[in-house]
């Protein structure tokens, strides 16, 4: 790691002891994201004249903010060094259950609460399995539960869809306060809450610590199991919230809703500088990366770029973004260039 400064006696210098350095401040990943955001906006403005318009940007927000709801808790999951690929299936299952409840005559408000409970339960199941069986990796467990949750959704609704929700329900996805969409307001509140949780509470500091090393954290008295369980449960709950917004936006629910969302969500988190090796990242970065990916997609869509080409661009952007910090730390070393030209000489 480049930023781990060592003292002469071999102990690591903690960030707070290092003091402020302008160079380190300017080399932060967030500036990179700001730069990307500026470039994306310049491209969008120059190609589509109607882009730089408050209403249009607000409408664009509605397009991708349902994913953003899950991005914040997912950042916590990835910060732990874990992963949750079942979020899209939780979205499908909870929205389908909401639809089924509504169809069977339960009032919409209660149906929404049931959906949220289902999402929470799904997240809890993921968490409890991971806590009880520590040797299982979260990738495998959530891979299996992903299949199960979507499977249950398709048992419930088969290939049908449920729609015809009351008109107030549509306000979640389409409603506005003034000219700001409700979903944007929700995301801002949620982002602030998660930023507070991560950066200003014991819980957040412990999450960072667990991302660095679970064993060390446990030996220093952190209830690692509890934190892991809470984070996965909250991820389930927020997936259900996202499902409510998505169902409201689409006006109906189907078992195959939100397919492939988990990959977009993980991409947003990783582009935001949260390290899936654990223990690194912050909420500001994820917010910026949500905007970068979301606005890029929206802008490219405006100028009629095929969605497949957008796929290529987003994929390439993800890889370049992740490769740059690695390149930065390895280009300084002479072996890096040599390794391309000839074999690295063995170190003694």
């Amino acid at each position, binding site marked *: 790691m480049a930023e781990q400064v060592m003292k002469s006696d071999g102990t690591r210098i903690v960030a707070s002891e290092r003091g402020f350095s302008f160079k380190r401040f300017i080399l932060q990943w967030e500036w990179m994201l700001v730069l990307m955001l500026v470039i994306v906006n310049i491209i969008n403005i120059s190609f589509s004249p109607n882009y730089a318009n408050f209403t249009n940007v607000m409408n664009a927000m509605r397009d991708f903010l349902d994913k953003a709801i899950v991005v914040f808790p997912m950042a916590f999951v990835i910060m732990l060094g874990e992963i949750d690929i079942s979020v899209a299936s939780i979205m499908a299952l909870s929205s389908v259950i909401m639809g089924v409840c509504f169809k069977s005559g339960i009032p919409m408000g209660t149906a929404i609460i049931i959906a949220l409970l289902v999402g929470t339960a799904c997240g809890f199941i993921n968490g409890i399995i991971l806590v009880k069986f520590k040797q299982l990796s979260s990738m495998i467990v959530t891979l299996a539960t992903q299949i199960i949750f979507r*499977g249950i959704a398709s048992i419930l609704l088969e290939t049908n869809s449920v729609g015809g929700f009351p008109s107030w329900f549509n306000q979640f996805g389409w409603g506005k306060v003034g000219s700001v969409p409700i979903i944007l307001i929700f995301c801002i509140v949620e982002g602030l809450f998660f930023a507070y949780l991560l950066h200003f509470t014991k819980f957040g500091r412990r999450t960072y610590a667990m991302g660095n090393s679970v064993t060390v954290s446990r030996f220093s008295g952190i209830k690692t199991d509890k934190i892991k369980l809470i984070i996965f449960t909250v991820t389930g709950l927020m997936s259900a919230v996202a499902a409510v917004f998505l169902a409201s936006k689409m006006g109906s629910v189907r078992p195959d809703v939100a397919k492939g969302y988990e990959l977009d969500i993980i991409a947003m988190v990783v582009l935001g500088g949260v390290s899936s090796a654990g223990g690194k990242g912050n909420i500001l970065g994820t917010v910026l990366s949500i905007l970068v990916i979301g606005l890029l997609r929206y802008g490219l869509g405006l100028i009629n770029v095929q969605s497949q080409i957008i796929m290529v661009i987003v994929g390439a952007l993800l890889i370049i973004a*992740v490769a740059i910090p690695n390149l930065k730390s390895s280009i300084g070393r002479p072996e890096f260039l040599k390794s391309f030209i000839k074999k690295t000489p063995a170190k003694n």
Partner: protein
Amino acid sequence: MNNIKKFFFSNVRELSLILVIIFISIFVQFRSGGNFLTSENIRDLFTESAILAILSVGMMMVIITAGIDLSIGAVMALAGMIGTTLLKNNQALSPIIIILVAILVGTVCGMINGVLVSRLRILPIIATLGMMNVFRGITYIVSGGGWVLQNNMSQAFLGVATGSILGINNLVAIAILIYVIGYIFLNYTRTGRQIYAVGNSEESAMVSGIKTKKILWLSYTLMGAIAGLAGILYVCKFAAAQGETAVGYEMNVIAACVLGGVSISGGMGRVQGVLLGALMLGILNNAMPLINVSVFWQEAVRGLIILLSVISNAIIQRNVEVKALRRRNI
């Protein structure tokens, strides 16, 4: 007696899988009124699982290095699409050339993944996730959003999936060949053993003189080549190539590996286990329609069985470890 015990403890994974497979087979045999264990159905079963089994060997190598490859579904689609587009434009091309082209496409894709993971040190899950989007997008661009259908494919090419060698279906024969090569490669060659070493601990491997970057790169390249081969076989078997070919297939392959006892944290996994894992998934796919499990239930049942077998394996492994510790009389 001691030898039997030793054999049992070192093969717990495979033996328990075999037990589960036997149990499921007997159950399905009775429930379906004897339609499961007929020679015809078993032949179908092997043909259906062949492609999954082929891919599992490659995925196993990648997972052993503590990596993962999420891009294989997209690589399969790309290789299948480029292969069949060539065929569409020139019907006279021999199937061998088409297959070689597909393997070449897959190899190039794998090389790119390998460079990203080994040289640029991008985490495998992120690198292959990004490349999955890229490859899938390129597939759409190559195809122009269209399909290559059966009437665009030559009879010789379609015959690859339906024909047989020595009474064994070609797909199964290719799978057997890949497994024999994989078994020898991973167990009896230096490079194969080095893959395990890198997966156990990259640092120790590097210190002991293994060129870890090369090994990492090689395992992704081999995965790519295998995905290319599997992709063209997939397209050949279903007689259609499109942008959506094999979407999400990587999850099946990872599931087969995990069922077969490959540890996601790297360094552990055996060819024989992975074969059983792939067969088990194949049996589930084949048996559920036979005992009238509705289409909508099949997904959930499959997921539940994966989850249960992973958990039960964790419990078995824990007990075995506890027993092994006790036997040492500390």
